């Protein structure tokens, strides 16, 4: 697959209260953003187990986004802080696997920031497009069982 026609496959773990609502707002407001991101809703970014991220990369994701409430705004008080710590640690581990840390992104998007969600998706997609496919298990482009 040539670089120009490469469409990154991104997975986003979005918290139910802020980012998922923000993404919903972007949708209801008919904002156009890169369709590359697939969203998985979790109640809180604190629920995002490092396994999920590894699994996503393993399944063929070119990038993983974790998006939650702004610091101090967490619906569960401090789940986003837990996510922030895990993101930092996991980024180091990913490097050891040969996965660039740019492929794993943490963003704060509040429920009212539909435009920010649009912007994050577009930016992230472009960033990954420049990085190229991850092709972790060498079967990129083929149907995965």
């Amino acid at each position: 697959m040539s670089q120009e026609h490469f469409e990154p496959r991104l997975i986003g773990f979005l918290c139910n209260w802020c980012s998922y609502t923000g993404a919903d707002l972007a949708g209801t407001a008919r904002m156009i953003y890169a369709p590359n991101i697939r969203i998985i809703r979790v109640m809180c970014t604190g629920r995002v187990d490092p396994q999920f991220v590894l699994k996503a990369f393993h399944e063929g994701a070119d990038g993983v986004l974790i998006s939650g409430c702004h610091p101090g705004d967490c619906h569960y008080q401090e789940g986003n802080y837990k996510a922030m710590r895990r993101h930092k640690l996991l980024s180091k581990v990913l490097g050891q696997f040969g996965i660039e840390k740019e492929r794993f992104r943490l963003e704060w998007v509040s429920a009212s920031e539909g435009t920010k969600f649009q912007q994050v998706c577009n930016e992230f997609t472009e960033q990954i497009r420049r990085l190229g496919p991850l092709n972790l298990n060498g079967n990129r482009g083929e149907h995965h069982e």
Partner: protein
Amino acid sequence: MVNLTIDGKKVEVDEGSTILQAAKKAGARVPTLCFHPVIEPYAACRVCVVEVAFRGKNDLLTSCNTKVEDGMDVRTASERALRARRLNVEMLLARAPAAEPLREIAKELGIEKPRFPVKDPDEKCILCGLCVRACEQIVGACAISFIERGTDRHVSTPFGEESEACIGCTACAHFCPTGAITVEDKYGRKVIHDEMLLGPTTAIRVPIRQAVPMVPFIDKEACIHFKTGECKVCAKVCDRDAVNHKMEDTIQEIEAGSIIIASGFKTFDPRRIPAYGYGRFPNIITAMEFERLVNASGPTGGKVLLANGEEPKSVGIIHCVGSRDENYHAYCSRVCCMYSLKFAHLLGEKTKATIYDFYIDMRCFGKGYEEFYHRLLKEGTKFVRGRVSEISTLALTEKEEGKLIIRVEDTLLGAVRRISVDMAILAVGLEPGIDHNRLAKTFNISCSQDTFFLERHPKLAPVSSFSDGIFLAGTCQGPKDIPDTVAQAGAAAAEALALADLGKVELEPITAVIDDKLCSGCQICVGLCPFTAITHEKDKGISVINDALCKGCGTCVAACPSGASYQKHFRDEQIFAEIEGIFLI
């Protein structure tokens, strides 16, 4: 108790009462000038003189400061008392012929003109010293006193200069029986628009006529007692001893099942737009100030007046001040168009002024609103479509001299216009209330982009917040008018009642569970839970989750090293399946 006779009528009064009080009880009218119930009587004016027969003597006594005694025979209108009173009044009248209450008493006593020479026909001061005593006894400031002697005696501050002791309470003017003391603005303004929201009022007052509860409060900033430690007049006149100056603010803890937040709005501060000149030029007022100005119970009694006390000949109403402006607030404040139209109507009703209404779009969205706009069109309000760029006092022609010049692009004419007016009213927009951000933090409420509180869903849950049991009503959620606020508040109350009526709370079925067969009792999850829903059971060596406390964030699930903790509907297997499923497409 003391028994005495007043004009042949037997009365019984408390010991220590004055003859004046006894006369009042007996229904006899004794005129007074320098007497005030909250100030110690001094008997300066001697208008209240009565004839008292007591212990075989006939005396002329001032009734305001003479205490009653058993067996007194008081005659308030005997020939001798009246003669004395007439003489006293005549002498006072020669000194202060312009004092209105004194002239009334003189008229009652049949005095046309004093026999004595009049020095100053405009004089009002009768030198009773009530003001001096008020300043000393009530205010505790002692800022004024009598100065000079003989015919030059008068009330003044030391050396007739501005006194540092004066706290500007105007109690002297309030107590003056003849209106000899008047209060004037330092800058000669007749109407002080920017202090409109403060007055006229008293330090102890009911906040508004419709206040609930309808009880007065003391404004510590304005109360004389909190400045000088004296006064307490309100406590003196309160029959029920309800006034308590020692009361402190208290924090009350109230247990509630649900909370409705209706913290309201504040208006946009037009000082933020320097080009509109608010606070720099006179006669530029905000909508709130105009509301006070035009209010029948306001400082001018409902008259629309300029700072110099005259009626304006032309008024400009400027819409969208702080609203629909990328530099300030992008949103429309919803209420300004309609209140501006109301202002235009009231101005037409109360003045003969030419009314200009500068609008961007006329947003008359409600029931009967468009009809009202059409009525205003017929009433002759001059509507100019365009945003005002500047209000200044820079006159180019003689006609513009002393006026406010409004520069505006008339988008219907396609030309820039200069319109000079006497008064400009800024239709300021709505902003979230003062404690908005603190409330958002306290209740963990999200805010939308316009900084108002965000409802859970614009259509399906318009009064709920993201936190269960916390509801929103009114302008804290977004700009809205009174009908909309009432409707939303009703809905919020119904939601809260529905919760109370149910008697139990339904929880989301997404709580976390610990599998006791897998749990190793490491307690990592215990420290992570923000709701302290997880407890460690020592005897069993495992941790357990309290379903009622768990809010289902799943933080513990993600952290559990042995996979013993799982979140219902968000199990690891389920999310793995989701991830796999995504890549099937």
